[in-house]
């Protein structure tokens, strides 16, 4: 039996404005969604996923306009409808869950106040009824203490809980359609599972149709009945999830599927003096010890991945190595010699040897400096290059990170894409000609195709320049592709460490096992199996 069509978008065109010109963002996309169906929208950044998702509510962001096509929601033409009509739908029959719950909740109001807003405004429920209903939905979203969690402010609950509270809020009026815009992208793997399971359950229980936007294929495989692939504002292909995963038709889709296949060749066990040796480090802020007795080594041409959930002390370890946070106990050896604990006591030579690449390239590059100075400064400072020699070096570095020097050398960071900015971060680290580069979640903010490009680049540079990497991440798929050794951290303690192959094949500790099993796989049954194995209701 064919289900009733809920949302029908035909030949949708959306244009965005840059300066005075309008350029197309979505170029004639068709989309059909039946009642109770979940459609996954995937594609790299800039594919128009979010724009399309918002258009399903008849909404265009500032600086965008819907320029063609029709949007039909249950017989209502959303393009022709007045703003008042559309408003009466939003929040009541169509709801939206944004990527960052932390940024979407108003920090000045309690969760339940924000929950009640839509039902009360749309006159679906009275305030008391809505509050009681909130508790019920919080329970169904498996939030701890459903009776009282609503009375907290957004900053008093964790990121994963906030994302679930956001979904509960979207369900408040029992909408027929929910648009999820990358709801788990900002969460770490173990939290992601909980949110995914909760979202999937509640959508099924209420028979809500959903559009699930993400760039993570493994996630979409768990959530969606059908998948639509977008590329630069056009549809590539659409099929049922299982069919799409098993036999993608288009080359572009195949390339998306193959992203996770990159793997650095296995390296022989390292010998000799390690470049960096962290010895029994205990460090912290104020009265709290964030790290307790942490030890590990990093050898030349090897990548050590430090993994763990947020708050496990990964970044703090990096701060100890760079000297931003002098340790309370223990020391950091560099080529066998102890480094001064604070960075201001280190010589330029010592500072040069250890460079850092940051997670957010946006905040790691001074937006007012041109690439010439951003990349050139370390070379100028440490290596004393000037004039022509400096210019040549900057051009070499740009070629090394696969950006065309003549085109890019005088640009500002704002004129680059996310992946290009991260490449500039890498070039800046390389300009110092270091022995160790600390990569702090360098690929987390990038979508998978760009991620792969960065990982390949890092791997190539490692072989060419004999670099050692300390790779901080919560993404175990990344670890699988490039790490040689893995250090697993939990609450400031090294739980387990060893060569990647050994650790992945036979994790000794329960925590390692939990982390490893939480990495989404492309198999659409993965989440069911995992939840069953963990003894939770599927």
């Amino acid at each position: 039996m064919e289900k009733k069509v809920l949302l029908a978008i035909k030949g949708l065109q959306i244009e965005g404005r840059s300066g005075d010109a309008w350029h197309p963002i979505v170029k004639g996309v068709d989309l059909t969604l039946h009642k109770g169906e979940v459609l996954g929208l995937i594609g790299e950044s800039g594919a128009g996923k979010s724009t399309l998702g918002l258009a399903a509510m008849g909404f265009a962001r500032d600086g965008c306009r819907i320029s063609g096509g029709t949007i039909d929601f249950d017989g209502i033409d959303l393009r022709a409808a007045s703003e008042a009509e559309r408003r009466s739908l939003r929040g009541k029959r169509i709801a939206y869950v944004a990527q960052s719950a932390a940024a979407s909740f108003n920090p000045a109001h309690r969760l339940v106040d924000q929950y009640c807003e839509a039902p009360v405004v749309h006159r679906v429920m009275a305030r008391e009824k809505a509050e009681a209903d909130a508790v019920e939905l919080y329970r169904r979203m498996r939030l701890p203490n459903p009776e009282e969690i609503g009375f907290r402010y957004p900053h008093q609950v964790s990121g994963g809980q906030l994302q679930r509270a956001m979904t509960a809020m979207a369900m408040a009026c029992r909408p027929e359609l929910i648009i999820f815009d990358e709801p788990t992208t900002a969460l770490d793997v173990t939290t992601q599972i909980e949110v995914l399971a909760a979202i999937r359950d509640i959508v099924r229980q209420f028979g809500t149709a959903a559009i699930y936007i993400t760039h993570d294929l493994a996630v979409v495989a768990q959530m969606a009945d059908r998948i639509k692939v977008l590329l630069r504002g056009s549809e590539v292909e659409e099929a049922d999830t299982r069919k799409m995963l098993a036999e993608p038709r288009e080359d572009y889709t195949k390339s998306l599927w193959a992203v996770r296949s990159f793997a650095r060749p296995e390296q022989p066990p390292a010998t000799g003096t390690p470049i960096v040796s962290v010895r029994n480090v205990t460090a912290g802020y104020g009265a709290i010890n964030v790290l307790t007795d942490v030890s590990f080594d990093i050898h030349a041409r090897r990548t050590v991945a430090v993994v763990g959930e947020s708050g496990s002390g990964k970044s703090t370890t990096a701060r100890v190595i760079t000297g931003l946070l002098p340790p309370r106990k223990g020391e950091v050896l560099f080529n066998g010699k102890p480094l001064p604990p604070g960075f201001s006591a280190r010589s330029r030579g010592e500072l040069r040897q250890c460079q850092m690449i940051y997670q957010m390239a946006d905040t790691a590059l001074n937006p007012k400096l041109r690439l010439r100075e951003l990349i050139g400064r370390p070379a100028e400072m440490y290596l004393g290059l000037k004039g022509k020699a400096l210019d040549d070096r900057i051009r070499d570095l740009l070629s090394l990170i696969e950006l065309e020097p003549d085109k890019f050398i005088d640009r500002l960071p704002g004129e680059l894409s996310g992946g290009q900015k991260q490449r500039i971060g890498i070039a800046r680290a390389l300009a110092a000609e270091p022995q160790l580069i600390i990569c702090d979640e360098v690929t987390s903010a990038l979508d998978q195709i760009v991620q792969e490009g960065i990982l390949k680049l890092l791997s190539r540079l490692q072989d060419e320049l004999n670099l050692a990497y300390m790779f901080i991440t919560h993404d175990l798929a990344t670890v699988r592709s490039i790490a040689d050794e893995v250090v697993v951290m939990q609450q400031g303690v090294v739980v387990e460490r060893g060569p990647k192959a050994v650790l992945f094949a036979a994790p000794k500790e329960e925590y390692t096992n939990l982390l490893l099993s939480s990495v989404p796989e492309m198999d659409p049954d993965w989440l069911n199996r995992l939840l069953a194995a963990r003894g939770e209701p599927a």
Partner: protein
Amino acid sequence: MNVIVFLAAALALFFVIGVAARAAMKTLAPAADKPTFRDMPLTASFGIAVILFYVLVAVFGPLLAPFGEGEVVGAQYLPWAAPHYLGTDKLGRDMLTRLIYGARNTVGIAFATTALAFVVGSILGIWAALAGGWLDQWTSRFVDALMAIPALIFSLLLLTIFGTSVLTLILVIAAVDATRVFRLARSVAQGIVVMDYIEAARLRGESNWRLIRREILPNAMAPLVAEFGLRFCFVFLSISALSFLGLGIKPPTADWGSMVRDNATLITFGDITPLLPAGAIALLTVAVNFVVDWQLHRASGLKE
């Protein structure tokens, strides 16, 4: 009726100057900046035109002025008639000449004072934010203490102690105003020093001076420039106020503030001559604020 005609004429003049100035800047600007000037609001182009006019008058003052600055050229309080187009003041000096020289003195001193206040205030403010800890506490609390004293009283006090010369006038007003700039620069810089690029630069081993100059200042420019415009007007007003009280610019140096005071008697006879220097101050203040508003608007990214 007269008032309405006058207002309509002023408004028309404003439009004519604004449109003409915008057209001129659009043609003269290099190709890359043309869109900036094309999208410029009329208020901003008018403001720029007026400021340019003041600057020209100040620079070419001695060439433009028909008489000498302190020269007594006729009877006192002469009406507006050739060769004294704006009449004479209470000592029989040419009013137009004094207005032109006043542009030099008042605007020049105000600019020097504001610039000094900004150099000192913003460097110290950014340094305090960068250094943090007790250094930040001491400098900031000291500045707070200074700010607790009303600015005019404090300037009067300092001027009585150090005497009234142009140099002390500049230093005193700059010192008072630098405290305000310090607060702004510090709070803006506090938002910047926590960015990863500052951490990266510190880890690279950059000196404080370079961090302030190359890493922080370019990112703090927008609010500082906006504040510069406002401060400039305030300085203007405080110089005029001090001159009016007799502690600012010493006669016979022409100064708009003291010119109002000296000729104030005329107002009682229904003559608007003493209001001309006041009008000159008001016009410049408005013009500077038009330009500042435009800059703020651009910096905040609020298009349309």
